[in-house]
């Protein structure tokens, strides 16, 4: 074969290598995601507890009834509204008013209960005064919010949920003692 023909063949071969390497650049894309998956890195927020689907289910409405009690505590404690209609998945807020009727500081802890009881696991509280103990100075009044979502997975036969909070005095913390 003449040198010219041999050179041509070489040109074609090397040009093919160049084209293949251009493709290789693109092949690195899926390869990269495979490697990341294999090593468990860069999983784009899918690790750990992912938030449940919070899409609002507008096909149904659930009535939430609010109840409030105190147990051996001289506090005025009432929700701002008695009941509220929400769609499952909708973020809602309710406020409770609490007043310490004693002249001295008192610490209390609220405990929630649900009716029907099984509704409790579908009632997701995002923010709640019941997450912490609450200390009120003598005569202080406060509005305490509860932010919640009813899980759309709530069984369809549940149309009403009663949420009842009871405040218990935490002994020994600025109260009786």
């Amino acid at each position, binding site marked *: 074969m003449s040198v010219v023909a041999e050179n041509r063949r070489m040109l074609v071969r090397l040009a093919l290598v160049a084209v293949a390497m251009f493709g*290789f650049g693109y092949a*690195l894309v899926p390869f990269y995601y495979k490697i990341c998956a294999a090593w468990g890195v860069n999983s784009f927020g899918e690790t750990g507890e992912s938030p449940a689907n919070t899409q609002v289910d507008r096909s149904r409405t659930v009535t939430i009834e609010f109840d409030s009690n105190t147990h051996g505590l001289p506090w005025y404690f009432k929700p701002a509204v008695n009941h509220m209609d929400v769609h499952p998945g909708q973020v809602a807020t309710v406020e409770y008013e609490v007043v310490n009727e004693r002249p001295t500081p008192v610490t209390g802890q609220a405990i929630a209960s649900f009716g029907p009881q099984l509704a409790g696991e579908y009632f997701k509280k995002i923010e709640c005064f019941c997450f912490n103990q609450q200390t009120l100075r003598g005569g202080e009044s406060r509005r305490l919010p509860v932010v919640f979502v009813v899980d759309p997975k709530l069984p369809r036969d549940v149309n009403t949920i009663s949420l009842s909070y009871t405040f218990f005095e935490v002994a020994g913390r600025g109260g009786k003692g």
Partner: protein
Amino acid sequence: MSAVVDTHGHGHGHDHAGHAHGHGDPHGGYGGLMRWVTTTNHKDIGTMYLWFAGFMFFVGGMMALAIRLELFHPGLQYLHPDFYNQLVTSHGLIMIFGAIMPAFVGFANWQIPMMIGAPDMAFARLNNWSFWLLPFAATLLISAYFMPGGAPGAGWTLYAPLTVQQGIGMDFTIFAIHILGMSSILGSINIITTILNMRAPGMSLMKMPMFCWTWLITAYLLVAVMPVLAGAVTMTLTDRHFGTTFFNAAGGGDPVLYQHIFWFFGHPEVYVIALPAFGVISQVIPAFSRKPLFGYASMVYATSAIAILSFIVWAHHMYTVGMPVTGQLFFMYATTLIAVPTGVKVFNWVSTMWKGSLSFETPMLFACGFLFLFTLGGFTGLVLSLAPVDIQLQDTYYVVAHFHYVMVAGAMFSAFAGIYFWLPKWTGKMYNETLGKWHFWLTLITFNLIFFVQHFLGMAGMPRRIPDYPLMFTTWNEISSIGAFGFALSQLVFLYNLFTTLKRGEPAPQKPWDGADSLDWTHLPTPAPYHSFETAPQVK
């Protein structure tokens, strides 16, 4: 100049080459500008590559001066921060793609055919086109400054997400890189084919001058990685305009993916720049030691080993992206492994000089400067290759100092060595040795003024790519800026020497360097005739 008299070689200096002018016009019938536009002669094209590289070297150098001017004092004095970022970006792109790479392609064009006894490059017309793509790419690159929003300011690495967001100047840059890539690939195909198919009878691969070997391996690297860079910028382009989301996080893409693809190109690119520089040094040091290159075969294997390893170390540029420790360790060990073949090369050069009959003309001075400073740059590279250290030094001036030691003191010193070494062969005229030595010493001193102190800045935590800095960094920055202006002035000595040599230089002796033993020195007259080796020489 050497006082030792040449005892062999040019006496039988290949008569045929002298006759070549006999038949017809050597310039294909065109004069003036059209001669250069239409030329297919490897020497003409090599000359054009070198002029282009020299011009771009000064363009990129002016940008560096503007950067150093702004950094002379803390605070914002002269440049808007956006414009500063654009200058930093263009300086990097121009120096790498516009200055260093074309300079070594210029050397390859001039020297490879003469060194292997070929009449010209394998694809002469393609060679012309490879060159003429460059001025257009450079115009596109620089005209980005005149677009709304200016040139891209994302750094020469063109990292997403900035590149997905910037103005139309970014598209100009992407297309400029496409064209530069095409030019490099075509040039590389030409070089590989020339070396593999066009060698004179008897010139086996293992008899080739080292410069041809390093270019052969470099050309393979370029064919393998330039298309990957083209792919990376094409993905950026389609992310910007065609709704793909390779790197655009808003659509589920991943900017870190860009870094992986870019550095898969970027690390071999480092050796694309370094290997031809090694090749020039491997010609110069034996010539001025008057000894053959020590450990020729091990040089070939070391060069190949560096090239192969360069494909599996890219992520050492991105230790901080959050890769697993396993990955950091792999890339760290692979990177430190490169020190072995590089060490082989450095020790071979030193051994070549060992007990040699040394003389220190300008090319040798630049080669020695290269040897010392490139090794320093290699050591800081070794420091940076260690993942735990790199996490501290990532994106500081330590990195800037490191890569300027390998790019400037490595590639550019070697380019100067090559120009002084071969200028007599190419032009038949001898440069002014005194001015050459001034150029070397001034360049050496001012280079270290600029960059040595930047190690300290980096260790102290000064980040790169900022136009302003805390007061505590002032002194070192002042020194660095003074060095930069001194460096620029020193290059005027080179320009003066070059132009006076071309205009009224003394005629060069037939073989000014005693130890030079490649075919261009032993089988061709000085200056090299326009057409050389039309009949292949017989190599014993």
